[in-house]
């Protein structure tokens, strides 16, 4: 059955007519007024900013879902591996630097808020796994606050653009600034969001209790 399906799908690929609409041409034509010079970033945050906004909301929803599914009472034992700690000590500053660079590079070459946030979140997970820090973990409420702040910032900018006729319709001359503002906010909140998916899975028993009792 599956082989048949694979055959059907592949043969369908060969029958496809060429695309009727030349989207790359449209994007290239309007790139100058998007505020950024990289076409993918322009599509992501200007031409189809709506999709990106809803995507961030989906991430927030997933975090709420993860939190609602109950935090584990047990905590998997993280051994303080010396090699891992040495690696983390060297890699973490570089990862922070790479994240900032990716955020800045998004305007004119591959990069952007999502890539930067992924690197930041990976740094947070590495930090957690290496066991460098042994003090108490941050309150899960902070994860929610920072993540919501990113979404609200995006929404505030989107709503402020309503005066221009439509949601997320930037004036061309300031589009670059607004996109950088949104991307900076998104980087922080998405990094916290992505890291929370992992970090909240490894909460200490006391923290889990505190969250369960929260209204």
């Amino acid at each position: 059955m599956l082989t048949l399906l694979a055959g059907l799908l592949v043969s369908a690929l060969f029958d496809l007519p060429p695309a009727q609409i030349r989207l790359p041409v449209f994007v290239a034509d309007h790139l100058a007024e998007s505020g950024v010079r990289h076409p993918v970033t322009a599509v992501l945050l200007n031409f189809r900013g709506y999709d990106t906004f809803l995507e961030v909301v989906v991430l927030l929803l997933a975090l709420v879902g993860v939190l609602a599914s109950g935090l584990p009472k047990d905590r998997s034992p993280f051994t303080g591996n010396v090699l891992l700690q040495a690696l983390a000590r060297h890699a973490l500053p570089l990862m922070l630097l790479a994240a900032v660079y990716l955020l800045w590079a998004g305007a004119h070459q591959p990069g952007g808020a999502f890539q930067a946030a992924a690197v930041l979140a990976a740094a947070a997970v590495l930090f957690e796994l290496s066991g460098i820090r042994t003090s108490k973990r941050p309150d899960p409420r902070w994860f929610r606050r920072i993540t919501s702040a990113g979404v609200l910032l995006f929404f505030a900018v989107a709503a402020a653009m309503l005066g221009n006729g439509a949601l997320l319709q930037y004036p061309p001359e300031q589009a670059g600034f607004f996109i950088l503002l949104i991307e900076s906010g998104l980087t922080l909140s998405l990094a916290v969001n992505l890291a929370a998916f992992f970090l909240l899975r490894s909460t200490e028993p006391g923290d889990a209790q505190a969250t369960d009792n929260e209204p």
Partner: protein
Amino acid sequence: MSSGLLFAIVGCLLFVFGLGGVILLDHLLRRILAFNLMGSGTFLVLVGLAQRDGTPDPVPQAMVLTGIVVAVAATALALALARRLHTGASNPPPPANPTCRDDRHA
């Protein structure tokens, strides 16, 4: 045959592998992985088909970037639910070596 078309074909095969996994595998974790494989296949088809004629198209690339992030979120939620299912079903302490069968009845 352009490289874009090759990407799309590989994407189709990955999708079918993933679909088979979702249907045939018992273990929840494997199913989640297989579901991710389906997603990756779809992304590959989207990006590959869009650059059949050689020039990359930024619109599907941005859509796929969105899709990847949503897939990560969905995976995290699925893993959280799977874990909840596992711990919830085994209130008498969990078996030392959980097998596929435990997951199915969980």
